[in-house]
C-alpha cells in the first residue's frame, strides 16, 4: 500500500492488514502509530461494526489469534502473592503447537482475580510453575471489558473521592446540640435552616469561615452569635444555651477487651453556651465501635470521641453535681425563662436558686412562672413553696386570702389558701372546700396529707381512696402516702395491692417507682412475709444499693461494686455505717466532700442531720449537712429548732413523714429530754414511719 508506515513491522507478520487498512482508516492509523494492540482494537471495532463479506471473515480470523498483535516487553511481569494476595497469571488461551499460550496477569485477592492487568504470550518454563514471557498481547474482549469497567469504577471512585475531598476542604460541619427539652430552630448564615428537637444533635454543613447563627424557640430568638467555622477534622459544635452536656472522652481499646472510656481520665466537659470545638476526634456524636481491628502488639489504642448527654438540661445537673451551684442555677433559670416556664424547668431552677441562696431570684422566678400560668394550681403551689422557703409565709397568707375573697366559691382558691394557712385554718378550709368540691384532687390530696401529718391514718386512707377512685393520675403522687396510711392501719394486703397496681403503671416517674419499690421491700417484712429477691433483681444495678438501704435490706459487696459514681458510692457506704454506728458515720462524712452529702437520700440525710444536731456541742459535720441540705433554709432551720427545742412549725409539719420521723427520733435522743417526752416522741416516730423504714431501724439499732 502506498505510503503505509509500519514502524512496528506488523504488516510483515500480518500482511492481511494492508487490505484491511484500505477499508478502515482507524486500522491504518493504528498501524502507522506502531501500536499492535491499538490495531487489534481498531480491527475489533471494524469487524463488529463495519466489515462485510470476506473482509469481516479475514478480520475475525486475525482477531482470533491475539498473538499476531504481539508487542515486546522490557521485563517479565511481577509474580508475587502472599496468602493468595498479589499478582498471578491465570488462563491458557490460544494454545499453539509451539508450546505457547496466552495467559493473563491479574491482581488477586485470596487467589480470586480482581483486576486483569495484561495478557502475555507465555510458554512454560523449565521448572514447575515457571514461565517464559514472549511479549504482550491484547486481552480478550471479556478481559478488556472487565479491565475497563473496573478501571472506570476506580476512576469514578477517585473522582468522587476528589470531589468529596475538595468539598471537605471548603466546608465544615457545625453540630448543633440542643440540650433543652424543647425543639429549637437554627439559622446559620449560608446554610438552610434546621429544626433541632430537644435532646438531639443536628449537623449543619456550611462553607468554612465566618458565620452568624440565630437560635429560635417557638419563633422567638433565644441566642445569637458569630462563629468561625473551621474546615478539617476539628469537630465544631454549638451548644444551645449551654444546656447540653457535651463531653470529649478518650475511649481505649485493648486486645481481648471491650472499649472503655478510659476510667482514669475524666471526660472533658463543655457546658458553656455557644461555639465549641474539639480536635483529633474520631467519633463525633456517635457511639464508638464495640471492637476495632488492631495488632496484637499495639497494646492499647485510644479513640477520641465527642458526644453529649441526651437527657434534658444535663448541664444543669452536671454543674450542680460539681459544686457549681451558682452557674447551674443561672443556667436553669435561663432555660426555664426561654422555655416559657415549663413546670419541670421552673422547679429545677427554683431548687438550684434556693441552694445558691438567691432568694430574691427564687421568688422572682416563681412569681413570673405563676403569672405566666395564672390558672395552674401547680404553678401557684410552686410559687407558694418558693415564698415559704424564703420565709414569706405571712405575705402568702395575705395574698391568697385576698385571692379567695375575690373568688369565694372557688375550690382552687380555698385549697391554695389552705396550703399556706396554719393547721387549724387549713383543716377548716379543706373541709369547706371538699364540701364544695368533694372530688377536687388537690383538696383530697391536701386533706389526706394533713391527716397523715396528724397521724390519722384512717381519714387519710379514706381521702386517698376517694382520690384513687376519682382521679387515678393525681393519685399517683400520693400513692406512697396511701401505702403508708394503709400500713399504719395494719392493712398490709391492701397496701401491697396499691404498690403492685402502681408499679404496673408504665409512665411512672423513675423516682416515684423507686420509692414504691422501697415501700414494697419495707412491706415484705410484715406478716405474711414475701420474697423480695425477684423485685430487687429488677432494680437497675446502679440504684440497687439505694433501694436496699431505704428498703431496710442487707447490702452486699457485689451490690456496692455496681455503683461506679464515686460520690454516690461514698454516700452509700456512709449510710451503711450509719445503720449501726451513727457517730462513726458522722466522722466519716466529715472527711468527705459536700457532693457526698448531696448523694444521700432524704431520710438518710435527715437521720445524720438529726444525729449531728442533737448532740452538744453539735458535731462538726452539721455545718456541711446544713450547707448541702435538700430542703430550703427556712425548713432546715425549722428542723434544727425542733431538735433543739421541740418547737414545731408549719414548715416542719408539712415535711415528708419519713424525714419528720428522723428528726423526731433525733429529738428523742437529745440529752435533757424527759423519759415521758422521749417515749411520746418514739411513739410519734412509729406513727410517722408506719412502713418501719430506716428511721424505725435506726431507732431500734442505734445505741442510746
Amino acid at each position, binding site marked *: 500500500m502506498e505510503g503505509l508506515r509500519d514502524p512496528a513491522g506488523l504488516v510483515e507478520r500480518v500482511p*492481511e492488514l494492508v487490505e484491511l487498512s484500505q477499508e478502515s482508516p482507524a486500522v491504518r492509523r493504528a498501524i502507522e502509530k506502531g501500536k499492535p494492540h491499538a490495531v487489534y482494537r481498531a480491527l475489533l471495532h471494524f469487524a463488529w461494526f463495519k466489515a462485510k463479506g470476506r473482509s469481516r471473515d479475514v478480520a475475525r480470523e*486475525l482477531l482470533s489469534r491475539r498473538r499476531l498483535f504481539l508487542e515486546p516487553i522490557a521485563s517479565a511481569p511481577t509474580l508475587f502473592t502472599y496468602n493468595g494476595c498479589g499478582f498471578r497469571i491465570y488462563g491458557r488461551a490460544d494454545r499453539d503447537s509451539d508450546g*505457547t499460550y496466552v495467559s493473563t496477569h491479574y491482581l488477586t485477592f485470596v487467589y480470586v482475580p480482581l483486576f486483569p492487568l495484561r495478557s502475555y504470550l507465555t510458554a512454560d518454563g523449565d521448572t514447575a510453575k515457571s514461565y517464559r514471557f514472549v511479549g504482550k498481547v491484547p486481552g480478550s474482549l471479556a478481559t478488556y471489558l472487565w479491565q475497563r469497567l473496573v478501571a472506570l469504577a476506580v476512576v469514578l471512585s*477517585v473522582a468522587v*473521592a476528589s470531589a468529596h475531598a475538595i468539598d471537605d476542604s471548603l466546608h465544615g460541619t457545625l453540630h448543633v446540640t440542643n440540650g433543652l427539652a424543647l425543639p429549637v430552630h437554627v439559622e446559620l448564615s449560608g446554610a438552610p435552616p434546621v429544626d433541632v428537637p430537644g435532646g438531639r444533635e443536628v449537623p449543619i454543613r456550611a462553607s468554612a469561615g465566618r458565620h452568624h447563627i440565630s437560635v429560635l424557640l417557638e419563633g422567638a430568638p433565644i441566642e445569637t452569635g458569630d462563629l468561625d467555622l473551621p474546615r478539617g477534622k476539628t469537630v465544631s459544635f454549638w451548644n444551645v444555651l449551654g444546656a447540653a452536656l457535651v463531653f470529649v472522652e478518650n475511649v481505649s481499646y485493648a486486645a481481648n477487651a471491650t472499649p472503655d472510656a478510659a476510667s482514669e481520665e475524666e471526660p472533658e466537659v463543655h457546658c458553656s453556651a455557644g461555639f465549641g470545638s474539639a480536635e483529633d476526634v474520631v467519633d463525633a456524636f456517635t457511639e464508638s465501635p464495640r471492637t476495632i481491628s488492631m495488632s496484637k502488639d499495639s497494646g492499647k489504642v485510644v479513640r477520641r470521641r465527642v458526644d453529649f448527654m441526651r437527657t434534658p438540661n444535663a448541664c444543669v445537673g452536671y454543674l450542680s453535681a460539681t459544686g457549681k451551684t451558682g452557674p447551674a442555677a443561672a443556667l436553669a433559670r435561663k432555660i426555664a425563662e426561654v422555655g416559657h416556664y415549663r413546670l419541670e424547668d421552673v422547679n429545677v431552677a427554683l431548687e438550684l436558686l434556693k441552694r445558691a441562696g438567691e432568694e430574691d431570684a427564687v421568688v422572682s422566678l416563681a412569681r413570673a412562672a405563676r403569672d405566666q400560668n395564672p390558672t395552674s394550681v401547680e404553678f401557684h403551689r410552686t410559687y407558694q413553696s418558693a415564698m415559704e422557703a424564703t420565709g414569706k409565709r405571712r405575705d402568702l397568707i395575705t395574698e391568697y386570702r385576698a385571692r379567695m375573697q375575690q373568688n369565694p366559691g372557688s375550690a382552687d382558691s380555698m385549697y391554695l389558701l389552705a396550703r399556706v394557712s396554719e393547721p387549724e385554718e387549713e383543716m377548716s378550709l379543706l373541709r369547706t372546700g371538699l364540701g364544695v368540691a368533694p372530688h377536687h384532687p388537690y383538696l383530697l390530696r391536701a386533706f389526706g396529707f394533713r391527716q397523715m401529718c396528724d397521724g390519722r391514718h384512717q381519714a387519710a386512707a379514706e381521702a386517698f381512696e376517694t382520690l384513687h377512685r376519682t382521679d387515678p393520675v393525681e393519685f399517683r403522687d400520693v400513692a406512697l402516702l396511701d401505702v403508708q396510711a394503709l400500713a399504719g392501719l395494719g392493712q398490709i394486703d391492701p397496701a401491697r395491692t396499691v404498690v403492685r397496681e402502681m408499679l404496673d403503671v408504665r409512665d411512672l416517674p423513675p423516682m416515684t417507682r423507686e420509692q414504691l419499690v422501697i415501700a414494697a421491700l419495707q412491706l415484705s417484712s410484715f406478716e405474711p412475709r414475701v420474697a423480695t429477691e425477684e423485685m430487687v433483681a429488677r432494680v437497675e444495678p446502679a440504684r440497687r444499693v439505694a433501694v436496699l438501704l431505704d428498703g431496710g435490706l442487707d447490702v452486699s459487696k457485689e451490690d456496692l461494686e455496681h455503683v461506679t459514681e464515686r460520690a454516690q458510692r461514698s454516700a452509700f457506704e456512709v449510710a451503711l455505717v450509719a445503720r449501726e454506728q451513727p457517730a462513726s458515720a458522722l466522722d466519716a462524712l466529715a472527711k468527705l466532700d459536700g457532693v457526698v452529702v448531696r448523694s444521700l437520700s432524704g431520710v438518710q440525710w435527715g437521720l445524720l442531720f438529726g444525729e449531728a444536731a442533737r448532740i452538744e456541742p453539735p458535731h462538726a459535720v452539721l455545718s456541711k449537712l446544713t450547707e448541702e441540705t435538700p430542703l430550703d433554709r427556712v425548713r432546715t432551720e425549722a428542723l434544727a429548732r425542733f431538735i433543739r427545742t421541740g418547737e414545731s412549725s408549719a414548715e416542719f409539719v408539712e415535711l415528708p413523714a419519713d424525714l419528720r420521723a428522723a428528726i423526731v427520733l433525733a429529738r428523742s435522743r437529745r440529752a435533757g429530754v424527759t423519759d415521758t417526752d422521749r417515749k411520746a416522741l418514739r411513739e410519734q416516730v412509729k406513727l410517722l414511719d408506719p412502713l418501719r423504714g430506716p428511721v424505725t431501724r435506726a431507732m431500734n439499732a442505734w445505741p442510746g
Partner: protein
Amino acid sequence: MAGVTAPALRSRAAILVAGWAGFYLLGFSLAGALLLVPWAQSEYGKGPDLAGLIAGFGGLWVLWGMRPRSARKPEEGLPIPVGAHRRLRELVAEVSRQTRHPEPDELHLVVDANAFTYTTRSLFRRGKTVIGIGLPFLFWLDRDALRSVIAHEMGHHVGGDLRLGPWVHRTRRAIALTLDHLDGSSFLLDLPFALYGGAFLRRSLEVSRAQELQADRVAAETAGTEATARALSIIERKSPLWNAYFWSEIAPALGRGFLLPVAEGFAVFEANVRRGAGTDGARPERKHPEPSSEHDTHPSLGERLASLGTPEWEGEAGKDAAVGLLDDPAAAEDLAVRYVLVDANRKLSRIGWSEVTEKIWLPLWTETLTPVGYAFAKLTATGLSDACASLDDWADRTRTGLSLLSPEASRRRAERYLGMWLAVCLSRSGFEVSTEPGAPVRATRGDVVVEPFRVVSELVSGKRDASEWRRTCATIGLE
C-alpha cells in the same frame, strides 16, 4: 501545506521551551492533584479511604514515570580518519567559510541516504560539531549538489536549530517514556500525556519543518538554487530504492561477512528496477507531489522546491561527480557500512557481484531450508505444482519457532521456501543461478532459463498451469 510557516528563532525557542515546561507542569499538576486527594481526606475528612489511596498511588506512579532518565545518544556514523578524503574535507571547510560557521570537528560517513549534523555537549569537556554525509549522496550527486547538502546542514547551525534540538529531544523523550510507563495502566493516566504529547509533537514538527525550509535557503544561498533543487530531487527519487537495495542486497552479504561493491551494485539495481525487471515485473510508478503530513519532520519535496521557487529536477546529477571527492571510494564504502555492524571491527571479505550467488544466496537458502528439511525430503520438482496448490499445508509444515505469523504471512513464507528450494534444486541440476541486484533470480542451463521464485509465485497464483510445469520439468530433465 501543513505547517511550513517560519517563525523566528526566538519564537520557536519560546514555543519549544514552553512545550518542555508545559509537560512538567502537566505532569506535576496531575501527580499533585492525585496526591492531594489522600492528603485532603486526611486533613479535612476521616482519613484516606481506598479511592484516596488509589489516587495517591496513581500520583506516585505518574511521578515515577516522569523521573529523569539519562540516555546517552550514540554517535551516528563513523568518523572519517584524519587525513583521509582530503578533498571532501576541503569542500566542507569551504562551505563552513561560506556560511560563516566554524568548520565541523568531525566528518562522518553513514550508509543511509541521509545527512545530518549535531553538536555534542559535555559538562567538563569541550563539545564537538559533527557533520554526517550519507554514502549514497557521494555517488548520486555532483559537487555543487553535495555542497548544497552540506550547506543545508550548516544552515541548521546558522539558524540556531542545534540549540533548540536538545530541548525538543528531551521533551519528546520525556513524554514518550512517561507514556510508555503509563500506557496500560488502564486508569486513563496516560490520556493527558498522550493528548499533550500529540499537540507538542505537532507543534515541534511544525517548527522542524520550518527549520528545514530555512536550512534549504542557506543551502540555496551557498550552492545555488539549482544545485539545491537538484540535490533535493535526486535524493527524494533515489532514497526509497537505496533502502530497498541496501537491506535486500548488501545487508545479507554483510551478515555472512562479505562486502560487495556498494556503488556498483546500486547502479545495476537501479537500472534493473527502472527497466521494470523487478521481481513483480511492475514498473515503479512516479509519485505525485504530496503535501507533508503533520507527522513529517521534513516538508515534502514539493513544498521545499516551492519555497526555493524552483521546479523539480528531472535529470541526473551534473558531470562533476561528488564521488571524485573521495580518495578511495572502496575504503569509504567499507567505513560507511561498518556503522550498521554490531561489531564495527568485524573482518569483511571483499567479493564481486559475480560471486554473490555461490557465496551468499545459495548457502543462505540452504541454511534457511535446513530446519524444515523434513518437509522437503520427498518433494520433487514435478511435485512442486501440487505443493503450491496446497500452500496452506506447506505453511503449516514449514513452520518453525514461535507461531507469530498470520495465515497470509505463513503462506508467503512457504512460497518463499519453495522458491528457495527450487533455486537450490536447479543449481544442483546443473543450472547456473544468477542473482543480479534488482533482477529476478534466474537459473540458466544452455538455452533454458527458469526463474524459480517466479515459477512458484505463478503456480501459487494459478498463472502457470501445473501440467505445463510438469512438461517443463520433463523437458529440462527435472524430476
